[in-house]
């Protein structure tokens, strides 16, 4: 009874937006994890380790940021990992054949973007649920990549190109700069453009969005193309960091990216979430795995911990949101 009375006095909606509150909780969680790790491990707070965490988080974030837009429209892109693999292999071949990293980068981005566009066409023109369309695409891309590579490995790229993934600028890894740039672009796009607003509206209620005059099909095409292009970008960073490409490099990428999106507070039902949240999601995921490595916990435990974090994050979100409504 007293709880109900307390709730009744609380204002129906606080001054902070729901999104801001979700992001705040996540930052808090990230800081808590940092604090705990700093106490438990001497090496956690070393500059090298922190930069390492950021660099690893950036790789997950590139894929997850595009995916966030898809999830905001209540869709899912399961093909991102396979897309990274194909794009990396094709970009690698182009660099080898032409010797031009610039051309290779463009090819990688284009390959990712085209795959995304095909996903978008399946979802809009053919009206295949995104989950199924991109799941099918995953297999198609895997098939193409394995056929194309035929068990070969591409390796040895120009030093200039390798700088993208492993180089430093003013003491910070280059991927961290890219991370900041794309975090900024992604946040601006989602929060500060009318396209971003339309994407939220589509996710919240696609029927109402269409009947409100939003070109739903075109926006969905855009969103899937962006997701694909970000996978293309990730493929370039991977290629340059690993200095090699194999057919199977994408297999362990999709599920962590989805985990980052979910831990970041984006709802699979669409319309709710932020790109910044996804960044923190990627950070939390990386921090925990990094911490486990530092504390010499067996890597076999990592999937289990990831799963628990995802479930916890989504459950807490639902709880706080339900209370807010």
């Amino acid at each position, binding site marked *: 009874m007293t709880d109900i009375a307390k709730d009744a006095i609380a204002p129906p909606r606080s001054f902070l937006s729901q999104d801001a509150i979700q992001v705040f909780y996540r930052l808090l969680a990230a800081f808590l994890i940092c604090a705990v790790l700093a106490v438990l491990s001497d090496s956690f707070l070393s500059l090298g380790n922190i930069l390492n965490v950021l660099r690893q988080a950036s790789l997950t974030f590139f894929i997850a940021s595009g995916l966030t837009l898809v999830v905001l429209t209540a869709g899912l892109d399961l093909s991102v990992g396979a897309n990274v693999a194909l794009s990396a292999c094709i970009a690698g071949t182009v660099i080898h054949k032409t010797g031009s990293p610039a051309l290779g980068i463009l090819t990688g981005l284009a390959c990712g973007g085209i795959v995304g566009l095909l996903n978008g066409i399946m979802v809009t023109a053919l009206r295949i649920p995104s989950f199924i369309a991109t799941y099918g695409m995953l297999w198609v891309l895997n098939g193409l990549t394995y056929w194309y590579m035929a068990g070969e490995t591409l390796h040895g790229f120009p030093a200039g190109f390798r700088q993208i993934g492993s180089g430093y600028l003013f003491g910070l890894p280059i991927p961290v700069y890219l991370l900041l740039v794309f975090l900024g672009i992604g946040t601006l796009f989602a929060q500060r453009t*009318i396209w971003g*607003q339309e994407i939220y509206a589509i996710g919240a209620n696609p029927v109402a*969005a269409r*009947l409100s005059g939003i070109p739903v099909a075109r926006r969905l095409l855009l969103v899937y193309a962006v997701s694909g292009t970000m996978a293309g970008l990730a493929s370039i960073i991977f290629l340059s960091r690993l200095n090699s490409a194999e057919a199977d490099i994408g297999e362990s990428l999709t599920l962590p990216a989805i985990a980052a999106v979910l831990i970041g507070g984006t709802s699979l039902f669409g319309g709710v979430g932020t790109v910044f949240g996804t960044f923190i999601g990627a950070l939390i995921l990386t921090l925990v795995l990094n911490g486990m490595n530092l504390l010499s916990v067996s890597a076999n435990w990592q999937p289990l911990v990831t799963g628990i974090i995802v479930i916890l994050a989504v459950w807490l979100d639902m709880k706080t949101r339900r209370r807010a409504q």
Partner: protein
Amino acid sequence: MSDALPIEVTSPTPLLELRGISKEFPGVKALDDVSFAVYPGEVHMLLGENGAGKSSLMKVLCGAYSADTGEFYYKGDKVAISSTADAQKLGIAVIFQEFSLVPYLDIAQNIFLGREPGGRIPGTIDRRKILADAKRVLGTIGFDIDPSTIVDKLGVAQQQMVEIAKAISQNARILVMDEPTAALSDRETELLFELIARLKADGVSIVYISHRMAEVFALGDRITVLRDGRRIDGVRPADVTPDQLVRMMVGRNVDMTYPRNFADKPGELLLEVKGLTSSTGISDINIEVRRGEIVGLCGLVGSGRSEVARAIFGADPVTSGEIMFDGKTISGEPDLAARRGIALIPESRKSEGLALLRSVSDNLVVSALRKLFPSGLFDQRAAQRTADGLIRQLRIATPSARQTVGLLSGGNQQKVVIGKWLAAGSKLFIFDEPTRGIDIGAKSEIFALIDRLVAEGAAALMISSEQIEICHVCDRAYVMREGRIAGHLTRNELTEENIVRLGMHHA
């Protein structure tokens, strides 16, 4: 009305009595010290505007909400209703507007869902007994249908009958019905009223929620009026006039007439539809709408009115015909129609008009993004300023522009849907049942708004099943029948009789 006997004399003890019920939600006092009694065999009308507390009271009654304070008495004995099981034990059953039937099971399975009689082998169901029992229950309410019919194949009225049969089979003594005639045709409504009379004769009490004044007087033995979560009064139909009831519901005098200033002569042609045919079942539709006009689109539910609206807006594909808007041919998706200046206020606000989880502000600017932010860059503050202006202009009752739109009442939600097209600067407003589920005060505000819009040079095409509304506000009207335009009525010809005559199927 004539048999509105002095009930207190014939049965001094109420079947069920609620005393001092209060229920609070965060920020809202849904029920405030409400007392309410149901006597055996009476129809007790529950009246009030949206948000007055009818639904909350109903949910307390059936145990879906537990009251914060208050007491329940059953035949004079104090009881507790803290769960739906408690309510069911007391014989309370609710027929919600959205039925709770399983569409792919048959009638008999639905009636006995969860309490199927067991067969000889444990774990099996005695199918023959279920069918026989269902047949008997259906018989008691005079519903002659094969109990093995799949529910999905039934019409709304028949599904309602199944719901009632289900309640009766659970020995319900108090039936709570939430706007039971909202989706029924006139004939079906008559059948429902006959059934209610029969149930009454058997001593079943009925708590009946309605927005329709005619029903209140035709059916009610007693009337309880709620407003802002409080019980305003309990009266008998014979002792009040409709105007008095409206005043009790609204708490102020409301102009029951529909505000409309008819223009002397209509403006230029805005919309011209020629031979419009669509795969949704409409064919050869010819319609004209001029600036300054409100044109009605009437006909029975299912005659193709909404389909015409959707086809004009581009929401359904057009197979042949032409739509001329403002002198230019248009075809394509809703975004093109919207950009040209056509607005659709769809029939179902919640599922087609609003993003319920988003804010009032987000919903108000969603159709005007391109117009408000031509650079493509969105500014949350500017959006909220626009929203604040619309909130003031339309008198949308909301704590702020940041309130979640799903938390507003039906009338205010409808204002938000209209507001988003005002922001977009639309020229033609297509209203599909704009006053459905909206209380009287908000209704007359919405009509005043439409009147002002057309006076300023816009035009409106209005679909409504409330013929009286069409007759009062429209300059003229088209009547549809079976997917075609059956006739056109000028202002002078616009009467309920004419609409019904044109809309009826020829025998």
